[in-house]
């Protein structure tokens, strides 16, 4: 091969191209290579030092959930034809992947009751930031009004990105914030006021459904309030407010939990303009936080400003139905600095898992699963709230996650539970940093947690709280 190239040695190939001062000139300081078997044993040993949902009874959620992933998803996502291609730049030999995108877009559109969906973005929190950026492109506003009911990681990601976008984030407190016994839903008055005061500066008004505390928000009321506040706020219809058709109207963005949409009113029927969310619950594993996918759906008028890949239907020269990446003039590889987003590689394989999962559940299954989650969550909530030293943090309806307050140090309670093989849920205050969340425990229920599991949680949590309270009295 060297002779064909016309160089005498491998070394010459590099010496002629890389100037001497920037050649490394030594071996990388990394351990020597190992055989497949050795690497397997090493990684197996590392994995064995993690306590997964396989080894403990886990009620952790707060953004990622231990739902059952059907076996056929493993089989399909491991197929070479789906696992190993690149982005479908050559549509004639990528019809499988493109059709999956088209089907995925259809499923997400149906689920959210919004007409257009892209083929996925990275994950939940950055999807919310992407929606805020699209809102700025749409109406020119620079302010993001964000409910405090959004996931803390979402709020943090929004702030990081907003700085780059040239936007600011105004957080709207929840009802009862500042007092321990709040309702933990977005305060409608403060919500309307923040949007009204921002006037035409408000690009997007964003809330979560259900919110971070597991509380079901009145999505229709929040959407309507956002539009109404905009219509009456400063600058409404006045000079500089843009075309009357758009006027000054914030884009209403809802961060949804897609697995609840069999039972919860979909964003498209609640006046929401853009629905985004974390897709992990739909057929993707926990994977210590990723990869999963972000869903992104919207009303028709946003189609040409959406980020990410979009598959569209067309025909070939012989008239056969086929699929292509479409509306690519939005994208970075065509439009460069004028693109609507910089996203390139996103989460195609995870989105495949998502659409296979939704097809597996089917039209009736997604409703049945939602009702199962509602029922078991209700049972768990009432069972825990009946324990001494445990109370509900809010009374709002909850689908598959709820918050309680324990009358003890949460970290200590969680340690006691862990010793019994139970992970009772996430420490709310550790995640939000909000004073009123001290003592809060966020408990997630999936279909994998049975009544017996919930009873076991109650037993272990009750004992742990009692022990901590006893220790406090003794002290």
């Amino acid at each position, binding site marked *: 091969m060297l002779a064909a190239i016309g160089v005498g040695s491998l070394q010459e190939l590099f010496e002629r191209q890389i100037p001497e001062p920037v050649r490394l000139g030594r071996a990388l300081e990394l351990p020597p290579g190992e055989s497949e078997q050795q690497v397997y044993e090493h990684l197996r040993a590392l994995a064995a030092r993690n306590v997964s949902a396989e080894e403990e009874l886990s009620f952790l959620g707060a953004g990622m959930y231990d739902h059952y992933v059907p076996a056929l998803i493993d089989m399909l996502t491991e197929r070479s034809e789906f696992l190993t291609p690149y982005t479908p730049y050559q549509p004639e030999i990528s019809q499988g992947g493109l059709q999956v995108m088209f089907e995925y877009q259809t499923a997400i559109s149906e689920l959210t009751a919004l007409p257009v969906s892209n083929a996925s973005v990275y994950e939940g929190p950055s999807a919310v930031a992407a929606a805020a950026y699209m809102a700025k492109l749409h109406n020119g506003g620079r302010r993001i009004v964000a409910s405090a009911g959004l996931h803390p990681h979402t709020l943090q990601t929004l702030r990081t990105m907003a700085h780059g976008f040239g936007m600011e984030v105004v957080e709207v407190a929840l009802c009862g914030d500042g007092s321990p016994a709040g309702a933990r839903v977005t305060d409608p008055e403060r919500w309307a006021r923040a949007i009204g005061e921002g006037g035409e500066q408000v690009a997007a008004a964003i809330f979560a459904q259900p919110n971070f505390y597991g509380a079901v928000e009145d999505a229709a009321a929040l959407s309507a309030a956002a539009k109404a506040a905009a219509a009456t706020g400063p600058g409404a219809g006045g000079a500089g407010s843009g075309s009357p058709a758009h006027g000054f109207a914030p884009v209403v963005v809802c961060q949804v939990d897609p697995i609840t949409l069999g039972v919860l009113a979909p964003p498209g029927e609640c006046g929401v303009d853009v629905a985004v969310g974390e897709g992990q619950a739909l057929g993707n594993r926990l994977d210590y936080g990723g990869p999963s996918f972000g869903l992104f759906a919207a009303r028709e008028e946003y189609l040409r400003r959406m980020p990410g890949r979009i598959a569209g239907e067309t025909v070939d020269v012989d008239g056969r139905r086929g699929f292509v990446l479409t509306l690519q003039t939005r994208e970075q590889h065509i439009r460069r600095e004028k693109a609507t987003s910089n996203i390139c590689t996103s989460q195609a394989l995870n989105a495949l898992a998502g659409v296979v999962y939704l097809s*597996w559940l089917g039209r009736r299954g997604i409703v049945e699963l939602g009702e199962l989650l509602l029922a078991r969550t209700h049972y768990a909530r009432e069972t825990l709230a009946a324990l001494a030293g445990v109370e509900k943090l809010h009374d709002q309806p909850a689908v598959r996650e709820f918050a309680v307050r324990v009358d003890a140090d949460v970290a200590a309670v969680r340690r006691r539970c862990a010793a019994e093989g139970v992970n009772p849920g996430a420490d709310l205050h550790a995640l939000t940093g909000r004073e009123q969340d001290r003592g809060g425990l966020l408990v997630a229920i999936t279909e994998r947690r049975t009544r017996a599991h919930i009873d076991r949680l109650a037993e272990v949590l009750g004992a742990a709280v009692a022990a901590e309270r006893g220790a406090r009295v003794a002290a």
Partner: protein
Amino acid sequence: MTETDATPLQRDAARTIFQKGAPGRRAFVCPDPGVGEVDVSRLLPERFRRREPPRLPEVSEPELVRHYVGISKRNFDLDSGFYPLGSCTMKHNPRLHERVAALPGNARLHPLQDGERAQGALELMWSLQGALAEIAGLPHVSLQPSAGSHGELAGVLLTRAFHEDRGEVRRKVLTPDTAHGTNPATVTMAGLEVVKLATDADGGVDLDDLRAKAEEDVACLMLTNPNTLGVFDRNILEIAEIVHGVGATLYYDGANLNAVMGLSRPGDMGFDIVHFNLHKSFTQPHGGGGPGSGPIAVSERIAPYLPVPVVARRTGGEGNGASGEPAFELDYGSGTVGSKTIGRMRGFHGNYGCFVRAYAYIRSLGGNGLTDASQTAVLNANYLLARLREHALAGGGRVGELLPAPYPRAEPSAQGGQLCMHEFVLSGGPMKRALGVKTLDLAKRLLDHGFHPPTVYFPLLVEEALMVEPTETETRETLDAFAEAIAAILEEAAKDPAVAQSAPYTTPVRRLDEVAAARQPVIRERLD
């Protein structure tokens, strides 16, 4: 083509899962809630409830399996054949990586699991951070960004934070005209302004243009090295000096890192910020468009602004196990790293599943193996470039005359002519003029030969560009076969250009009407 000529896949009209099944069919069997009679309408008031179920498919499991296995066969994939897609590094994806990523200790590990009960995951992330730092020649790493473009966005935000912390307002980011589209798109998203740099005759940054544009209001130069022409910029140290001289930072787009692992390090070239594409250089399978993972490595002066958390190791202090083993933990800026963080780029810790695969790859190859991988990638690219250049055509002439590589300029003294790094760019211009066959036609005809075409029409400054990246995991036999196929297509075109102009013929669908798709977008199945 007549229908009798059509292949079985072509005769099989595309029908989506939404067009299959029948009312009442299902795959999922819902478990019994087992918590007694529950009145759902009491748990969820009417105004919050969905009225009509979403119109998801109603199919049985066998239908579901047959549908998706069926459409999978309408994909070409890396396991089936050569995939020399330039700047995408389509190297083999070892199946060991899928096996270890699927271990329950990884796959079912919740991201909020307490640190002391996720020590294996944290150690893996810490080790990967260290390995990437060594490969980049930069001390600190954040694994958080989800893909290359997300890493770029983090990098430009880091640059902004760095300058703002010094009270400086710098609005401009220099990007060469050969840059990946994500570079300028990222600059706009990060609120800065793109200033284009010209390319010199050797394919590197035009130094005069750089000197003219490197002013005090420049925040950063984003560079890929080797660049998208497959050219290693020999002036890199001088470029770094000019950029640092005006107080700007130097950003390394790691899309082409596969050329230089263990051979040359971005940190040693003077770069401040580097992103990696774990789905390119480190074998994360691309999945038909993701998932990817885009960690970043940074210099000491950028480290305070890194996204948090990063993984830290504590030794000999508090929090260690009784045995005195080191303990790993998520760190939110307790030390210098991340102390003035730009914040989070996303939820949780990044695409951990990709970290597992990348770490397995690094363990498998080791330091010398990674160097060997890059050397072989460069060797393969040069071999293929030479084979194409010299390949004689039946009607006279050589492939290289119809498909020349305009960059780098060949050294007249060099015996074998021009060299490239891990990829090279050919121009289809002479072919188009001589044979009437465009780069697109050549690419489509390659599909009939069972090859994935190279990246086409990029970079923009090469006429009718074909960007070829063979990677290190291809054999000499495959490279020879690809060169033969190119030659055969050119010979065929010399006789009858119409064959290539109407290609492909054997794929599940033939050329598709992309213009119609964009004019009247149909982006979901109609269910009415």
